[in-house]
């Protein structure tokens, strides 16, 4: 527990959070290892966790016909994946697959949703961090979209 508390307190995603909230988060976390190619979760499944990647890399992918699996983004150690836990209908929008042996801290989203309802300061602090991460992802996605548009325009 102390190790987990220390890890979360030092994680840049939680930088600035109170010791009380770090303690609470530590109580909702557990380390999980995934081997290369193993899925953390699949599209459509209940989204009851989010993941802090401690070691390794995770691909966020979608299955499309006829292409099969299409990787859309990779996230590496230090990054957080799986924001679906925070928003209804709490279902995974994509597959998450370990690209190499990967260690994540799996955070219990169901537990945290309840805690956020009780403690709005915790909810605000988490929402602040997830909305920042999502805004960055949205910006990156729009840049990718612009690149596609740009390439199509000159083709």
């Amino acid at each position: 527990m102390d190790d987990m508390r220390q890890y979360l307190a030092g994680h840049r995603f939680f930088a600035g959070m109170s010791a009380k909230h770090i303690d609470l988060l530590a109580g909702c976390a557990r380390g999980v290892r995934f081997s290369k190619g193993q899925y953390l979760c699949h599209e459509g499944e209940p989204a009851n966790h989010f993941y802090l990647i401690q070691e390794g890399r995770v691909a966020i992918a979608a299955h499309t016909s006829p292409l099969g699996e299409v990787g859309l983004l990779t996230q590496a150690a230090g990054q957080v994946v799986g924001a679906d836990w925070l928003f209804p209908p709490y279902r995974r929008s994509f597959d998450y697959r370990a690209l190499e042996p990967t260690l994540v801290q799996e955070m219990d989203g169901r537990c945290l949703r309840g805690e956020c309802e009780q403690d709005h300061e915790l909810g605000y602090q988490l929402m602040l961090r997830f909305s920042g991460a999502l805004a960055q992802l949205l910006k990156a996605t729009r840049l990718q979209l612009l690149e596609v548009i740009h390439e199509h325009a000159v083709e």
Partner: protein
Amino acid sequence: MSTRLNEPGGEVRPTDLAPLPFVVRKVHKELPGIFTLEMEPSTGQFNFRPGQFNMLYIFGNGEVPISISGDPQQPACLVHTVRAVGKVSAAICDLSRGETLGVRGPFGTNWPVHEIAGGDVVFITSGLGLAPLRPAIYHVLNHREQYGKVTLLYGARTPDRLLYHRQLADWKARWDLRVEISVGSAGPDWGGHIGVATSLIAGLEIDPEQTNALICSSERMMKAMAEELNLAGLPDERIHLSLERDMKCGVGLCGHCQLGPQFICLDGPVYSLDRVRPLISLREL
């Protein structure tokens, strides 16, 4: 060094306005619609500085500005990588071995490869932007002992859209060059990074006092790259970029490539960001 024709003392080289015939020695299809041509100068040698461009002329058809993408240490072979987007560039891509095209140049400013010697270098590019940057990469690798850490960050839409993919594999195998590649999307057999090219910058450890970044991509993407580099502590004067405009004369006369007070063909295409940041932020320019 090019000079303005409309300034006192401005000189015109014979090759500034009259194309010289070059013979195509090799045409290599890089990607669909993108070809690399190796040409033999009629003068025997063609010297240029990394970052400069030529006006390539298909006789009776027209002329287009194309960055030089070959090795500056190989002046007997002029190399251009061309995307077929209009009638002239398509005609260039249709050329075969032994055919001739006209070349005016070289024009414009260069990547500051001498000025940045002694420090770390980060090349950041995406798509076809690797072509104008390649002569600077050649230069740095040809003089590797003069530089600190050298990194190439390259982004493409998909793994099969990576330009110079064999060369990228060779560069990746070098111990003295870090190469990170990102693609926009990929199938399950791709084990590398997926995401926009700018996302690679966050993974770098940049010493802002020691590092210069040379970037080449679409203007919007370069702004995003510069933003990430600024966040990493790199000031605008250490960020160098190549701008693209509609170059016609190549010597700062016609004004087609004008960007505010700058003629890109003459004052550019390579600038440090602090010189052009106010200009590239203006919508109407």
